[in-house]
């Protein structure tokens, strides 16, 4: 066995902080993604909700024609909303894994490593997006089966993927913040339930903003889910339109993500105290 005394490998990282940061961030994400590969049951259980929304809710409401959808079928209108919703529902409970790993001592191991606190947060956000991308594939397959009019081409694919990644990163980081504040699994589940439905209903996921009363409309304008759905509807559906424009949609999501990461980075070490 070779012996290298008092020269820790990580000391050499200081010469390339950007490279070290990226590698540490990806290592955090890799740990979580490897676990998902070992046990993908979570992905299967997550499939149930979008299937129910599209097959039951979507099919029924398409027949009612009660909701103005701007010249596209209700099923087409709600498919991006269901995709955003499945991303939200998965990401918003992501923080419970942090509490669980804190209880097992795994978080301590990461916190005593030389990885920057922000890279620990960002790595977790990235691993959350891996789950959400799997859900994106499922929603696309369901949409194809239901003859939803999906846009084709690289622009649509890249745009939808980016919107899913941003949405997942924003809500999973929001979830980490909640976990760092409430610190217990029981309280976190309660908070998760309280947050999920208001975020969903105060958005344009299943009805347009024009139908909302003023107060709800105002709330929806500060809800990142609204901007994610707006971008998805324009990029994913033939004939889908954007209310705010793609630039504003992505700018809002990016800003929300930056704020969430900044807050989570400050709170992350407090999960163990």
């Amino acid at each position, binding site marked *: 066995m070779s012996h290298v005394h008092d020269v820790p*490998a990580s000391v050499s990282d200081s010469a390339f902080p950007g490279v070290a940061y990226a590698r540490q961030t990806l290592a955090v994400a890799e740990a979580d993604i490897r676990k998902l590969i*070992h046990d993908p049951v979570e992905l299967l259980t997550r499939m149930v909700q979008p299937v129910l929304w599209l097959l039951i809710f979507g099919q029924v409401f398409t027949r009612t024609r009660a909701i103005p959808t701007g010249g596209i079928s209700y099923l087409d209108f709600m498919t991006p909303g269901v995709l955003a919703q499945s991303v939200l529902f998965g990401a918003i409970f992501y923080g419970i894994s942090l509490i669980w790993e804190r209880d097992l001592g795994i978080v301590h191991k990461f916190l005593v490593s030389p990885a920057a606190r922000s890279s620990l947060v960002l790595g977790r956000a990235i691993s959350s997006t891996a789950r959400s991308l799997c859900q994106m594939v499922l929603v696309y397959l369901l949409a194809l089966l239901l003859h939803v009019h999906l846009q084709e081409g690289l622009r649509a694919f890249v745009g939808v993927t980016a919107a899913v990644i941003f949405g997942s990163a924003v809500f999973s980081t929001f979830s980490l913040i909640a976990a760092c504040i409430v610190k217990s699994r029981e309280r976190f589940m309660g908070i998760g339930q309280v947050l999920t439905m208001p975020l969903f209903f105060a958005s344009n996921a299943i009805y347009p903003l024009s139908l909302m009363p003023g107060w709800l409309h105002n709330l929806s304008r500060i809800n990142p889910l609204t901007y994610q759905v707006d971008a998805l509807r324009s990029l994913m559906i033939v004939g889908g339109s954007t209310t705010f424009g793609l630039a504003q949609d992505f700018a809002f999501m990016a800003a929300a993500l930056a704020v969430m990461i900044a807050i989570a980075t400050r709170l992350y070490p407090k999960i163990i105290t």
Partner: protein
Amino acid sequence: MAPIAQRQTATPADASAVRGPSAVETRSLTRRFESLVAVNQLTFAFGRGSIFGLLGPNGAGKSTLIKMLTTLLPPSEGTALVAGFDIVREPREVRRRIGYVSQMLSADGDLTGYENLLISAKLYGIPRSQRSARIAEALDFMDLTNASGKLVKHYSGGMIRRLEIAQSMLHRPSVLFLDEPTVGLDPFAKQAVWKHIRELRREFNATILMTTHDMQEADELCETIAFMHQGKIAAIGSPTELKTALGPEATLGDVFIHYTGADISEGGDLRDVARTRRTSQRLG
């Protein structure tokens, strides 16, 4: 404080003077939790290449001290140098140079042994060209090569602890912190972990700071032992010195009771007990 403690506690005024010889040096290190003073004006130092044992009843401040030294918890007052770096002003430099095995099981049960080591190697910046060899060495050193592809949740308790020690040593830290490394292990597994800790010390000249409630473990492994009580060091010295100071027939258990005024089985709040039980359950 006992005479031994007064004799052995060092408070060098010049940090650079101890940057070399001291693995850990604390200076009036204090941590308060509201009105509770968990660690109280602690000043002590120990040199490199030794195994230093931290003993004391639950709630004495051992884990809080380790959390501060590993930068998991900021001190309320004072500071400490670990491997020559200040835990308050240079926490990332400290983290590059330490290894840590928590009282809880920090190996991820949903990953294989190899994957646990691989993630650590990446976090600590072990170059890609050296990663596989370093991981293979660590697995071999801890007798885990044959189990490297198994999920850790299928490991025995002793194997998990050995894997954790391998993880914590992968980047060749200057100081290794072991927080109750054998809690919950059966006597055979304990012996195996002790053997590997001794080998680490011998092969790598590693400096180890460990906490334990096991007097036999402290006696067998540690060159220096400090007894903590109510946030302060009540006594410090070699096991022989500490026992001799109390009488010819004294055991470390007697020393423990003498300086802390506590029975070994007493103490600890609900959180301490729950954590220990959780660890024991995971260890099977």
